[in-house]
């Protein structure tokens, strides 16, 4: 059951000229939230911007006696993300959530491989904490443009997550896409594992293809332009193929945002 909360900004940490993490006091949303779910966010009042924007829940913020709220990882690309970047403690953000289907997280002895591209790191802080709490061995494959855009590495490693990186300029880890170290690791992996991916759609398509080639399942979190987050508007559709039938559009807000990567027909848009 989603709730609408006028959440107070507790902190806004600018990680770079584009990226920030905003911590929000919204225990009601955070308490009911499972990793991979999202919130619809409106940082300003009035009609500009009018619609809310979807954001994955990044961290669940805890204190010794309970849950304080959650944080969002944002990259400044438009009006709403610019407003989020400029927030100050005490400001208010309207948050509707939690919404959507969460990741199906695995237990030991199965391993979890998280694959993030850029701001696609967003759903994986909460996911990693949940996995580590289950005792599941967790690896983060993390790709970005350069070392300056790799964030929270210490956060993940201090929680026991193994980190493998790739950067486009080669300044950290492999040079090139995150699929390079991922393929290499898949070629060597022997045990049972489940993959989880979030990032730009070409990356999700590539990771899904790599997973399929190696006979692994991969849950992907997609981000489509979304109007309402509740299944009302049919704007955030993505083509999927279910039970061998023809591809058809489903709403990523309620059928996703987490899908089995193998069910998505990535090339459908160009064809159709």
């Amino acid at each position: 059951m989603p709730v609408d909360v006028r959440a107070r900004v507790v902190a806004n940490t600018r990680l770079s000229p584009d990226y920030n993490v905003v911590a929000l006091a919204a225990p009601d949303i955070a308490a009911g939230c499972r990793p991979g779910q999202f919130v619809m966010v409106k940082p300003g009042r009035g009609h500009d911007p009018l619609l809310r924007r979807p954001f994955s829940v990044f961290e669940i913020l805890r204190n010794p006696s309970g849950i304080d709220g959650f944080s969002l990882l944002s990259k400044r690309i438009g009006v709403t993300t610019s407003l989020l970047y400029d927030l100050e403690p005490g400001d208010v953000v309207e948050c509707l959530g939690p919404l959507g289907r969460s990741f199906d997280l695995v237990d030991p002895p199965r391993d979890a491989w998280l694959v993030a591209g850029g701001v696609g790191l967003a759903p994986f802080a909460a996911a990693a904490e949940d996995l580590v709490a289950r005792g599941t061995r967790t690896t983060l494959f993390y790709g970005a443009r350069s070392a300056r855009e790799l964030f929270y590495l210490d956060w993940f490693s201090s929680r026991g997550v193994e980190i493998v990186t790739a950067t486009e300029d080669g300044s950290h880890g492999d040079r090139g896409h995150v699929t390079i170290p991922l393929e290499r690791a898949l070629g060597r992996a022997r045990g049972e594992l489940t993959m989880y991916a979030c990032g730009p759609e070409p990356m999700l398509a590539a990771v899904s293809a790599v997973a399929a080639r190696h006979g692994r399942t991969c849950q992907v979190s997609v981000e489509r332009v979304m109007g309402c987050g509740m299944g009302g508007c049919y704007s955030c559709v993505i083509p999927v193929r279910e039970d061998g039938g023809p591809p058809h559009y489903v709403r990523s807000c309620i059928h996703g945002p987490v899908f089995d990567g193998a069910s998505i027909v990535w090339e459908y848009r160009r064809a159709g």
Partner: protein
Amino acid sequence: MPGKLDVQIGGLRLKNPLIAASGCFGYGVEYAEAVDLSSLGGIVSKGLFLEPREGHPPERIVETPSGMLNAIGLQGIGVRRFIAEKLPELRTLGATTIVNICGSTLDEYVELARILSDAEGVAALELNISCPNVKEGGITFGCSLTGTFDVVNAVRRVTTLPIIPKLTPNVTDVASFARASQEGGADAVSLVNTFLAMAIDVETRRPALSNIVGGLSGPAIRPIAVRMVYECRRAVSIPIIGMGGIACGRDAIEFLLAGASAVQIGTANFVDPFIWQKVLADIDSYMTRHGVARVADLVGALDTSAREKEWISS
């Protein structure tokens, strides 16, 4: 005994004047967890054809100043699955369900009306002759006076359900379409559907929507929609359901004063799915503040006397 908030649309009694607009509330069931559907005056289902439809490829929406464009392309499950899978649940939830129907031919509207007349739990039919996004979505009927008359009249012959043609604002004189609807036997008219519009990403030089053009909705269109409701009020005697950019109680009251007997909310529900109780509370407190006993007393209660005096004296 009529209550404070209930309204009458022809033969249809609604417990309050707020209705969820077609295409902006899914099939209703999507919102059942968040909203008590029985607390709304009614809900209008997403536009239904006889057969399922896939709709347009993304991008399907883009935000514009105080509004949005959409070209969903009427993705839908078709009338039979709607009756089998959604109607029973809507009945259980106590929703007053108005079904929005679309056809590419006169026969398709007639067939849809026949099928839905036999289904249990349909309160009224809204004839979508105004979707700007698909050629076959009835817009050819909605842009021609004889076409409008013919569709309404043909559906009138096969159903006793209240029929509510939904008018497009993309015409020069919307009031004449309200008149054609009344003459065809409509119980009410609803307006407006979206305004045909376009947005371009200047960096890529691409249209923002895959369909290139789409329909504009939201607060940006409200003053035009209010004017159109006002024009229709003066042209017909059947009730009018007004919509276009309503985002708070004040906006809803503006439509009532212009002549609408009830209102629909679309885009604003995307922003706030809990809008319904807030708007109702606003209307209620406005009525208390102005000593208005019944919502119906606000309908068309626009006061133009000062305006006229000014004109006479100048």
